[in-house]
């Protein structure tokens, strides 16, 4: 485990005007070495599953000035890879997932899925929200079959797959329950089943376990890892919890604080299954946190808002959990 990551380009803040317009049919869609951080496995064949090139996102703040939320994000994700994106709150990591999901449009840059530019939402990419986003007017079963119903899958097939995916998340008995009758962890499992039932190639997970208690989260880590192994999906998982990222990811990508840039990438080569309490996991987390220290301080500074730089020496960092 070494952090041989390069620093992001230093000329910040860059003026918005200099952001290059999206290149249509960009030759960058072919995977080469990625521009920041480590290179992905050299034997990646052809086109990456998800390829982000030079993604920028700016928005107009209430004061009228344009703020840059994401700054030239480059990221290639292989098919079947489990990538975790980590950064302090406010680094735009959730926004990045929304862009990949097609719920929002980037200001410039290109998102390719299987080599094709993303245009709007698509059931090949399903997002799992932090607050689950399940539909309270539908039963658990109806929630799970929702995506299939939208696709026009036949009733018989829907029923069969609903049963299968609910069993996969160990909720077979709760098919007829309403969402408010379930615990937080069960809701998140329904959300996972609902996403999987749509049979996406790519699962986008936006801090799905952040609101859960530690025991439930541990269980869901195990389940998610098992489901990932069984189904072979590509997963992009956003979290502010570094240990969680190492517990789950093949690779951990660090984003900087406002504007979000790729600061560095760490391949995680620890054998699976890993445990949150493993010393090896803790060591890796420490390494990443060292790398993140500046960003955390900047995010704290922004949070305290007064420009008073808090002196954080070692262990506890709000914004990022160890």
């Amino acid at each position, binding site marked *: 485990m070494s952090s041989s990551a390069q620093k992001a380009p230093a000329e910040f803040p860059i003026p918005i005007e200099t952001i290059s317009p999206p290149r249509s049919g960009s030759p960058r869609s072919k995977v080469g070495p990625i521009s920041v951080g480590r290179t992905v496995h050299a034997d990646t064949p052809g086109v990456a599953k998800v390829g982000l090139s030079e993604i920028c996102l700016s928005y107009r703040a209430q004061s009228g000035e344009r703020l840059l939320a994401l700054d030239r994000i480059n990221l290639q994700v292989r098919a079947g890879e489990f990538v975790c994106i980590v950064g302090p709150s406010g680094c735009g990591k959730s926004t990045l997932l929304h862009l990949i999901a097609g719920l929002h449009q980037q200001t410039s840059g290109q998102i390719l899925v299987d080599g094709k530019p993303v245009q709007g939402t698509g059931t090949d990419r399903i997002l799992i929200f932090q607050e689950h*986003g399940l*539909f309270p007017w*539908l039963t658990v079963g109806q929630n799970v079959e929702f995506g299939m119903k939208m696709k026009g899958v036949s009733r018989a097939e829907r029923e069969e797959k609903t049963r299968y995916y609910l069993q996969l998340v160990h909720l077979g008995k709760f098919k007829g329950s309403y969402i*408010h009758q379930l615990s937080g962890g069960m809701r998140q499992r329904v959300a996972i089943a609902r996403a999987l039932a749509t049979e996406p190639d790519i699962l986008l997970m936006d801090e799905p376990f952040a609101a859960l208690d530690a025991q439930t989260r541990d269980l869901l880590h195990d389940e998610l890892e098992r489901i990932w192994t069984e189904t072979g999906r590509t997963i992009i998982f956003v979290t502010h919890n570094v240990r969680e990222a190492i517990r789950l990811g093949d690779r951990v990508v660090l984003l900087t604080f406002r504007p979000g840039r790729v600061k560095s990438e760490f391949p995680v080569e620890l054998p699976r299954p890993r445990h949150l309490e493993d010393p090896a996991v803790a060591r890796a987390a420490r390494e990443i946190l060292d790398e993140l220290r500046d960003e955390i301080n900047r995010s704290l500074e922004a949070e305290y808002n007064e420009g008073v730089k808090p002196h954080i020496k070692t262990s506890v960092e709000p914004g990022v959990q160890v």
Partner: protein
Amino acid sequence: MKRAARYIIFYAALFGLWTLLAELKIWPPYLFPTPWGVGEALYAGFQDHTYWIAIRVSMERVLIGYGISVVLGMILGLGVASNKFLEETMGGLLVSLQSLPSICWWPLALLWFGLNQNAILFVVVMGSLLSVTLAMEDGRKQMPKIFGQAGRNLGASGFKLFWYVLLPASLPFIVSGLKQGWAFAWRSLITAEMLYLSLGLGQVLMMGRDLNDMSAVIAVMILIIAIGYVVDGVVFKGMERSLQNKWGLTSAT
């Protein structure tokens, strides 16, 4: 049980007071009928089918008119809620129009549609449309954004997104507006029917006045109240209860 007892006591007292006042004959019976006089009128009205026909005609009208209001109101409300320009311009107009009693549309309706069913429907629609529109606008705004995002994410778009996601997601927020719209529709209908020979309950009510038959007038009033109450108690209460059960809310509105 206790609640039922209270109801019985209250209505028995009301009934007793009425009987007492009628029996004292302070006013002549043709101005202040006895309860059984009203009961007889009700019986006679149903016996010769006048009330059955009136109820059927009135219900038909209110269902058509209210139905139009709900469909139009939802489209309008969604439009106003999702478009900044419409919200700033039409939003204010809608609120100010709500202060106009629906029967004020009657002269206009007469000239536009002539003395017929369509004029009545127009008044009913104008009476209830605004409530539904404003409720839908409000509901669309109150509805958590995540439902729309999740719906789009799972492949719903256009009409499917509206029908399967946005509409059910906003129901808890618009059910009180729908209820209010129904009340306005029912009132507008009866008012409009009273102004024109039209077979409905409103006309039967006026007929009682023309014939100096106070028992019949009160009998029809009771019918109008009863129908309004039953729809509210059965349809809307049922809807609220089902929403509460599904969403796990203590109160749906």
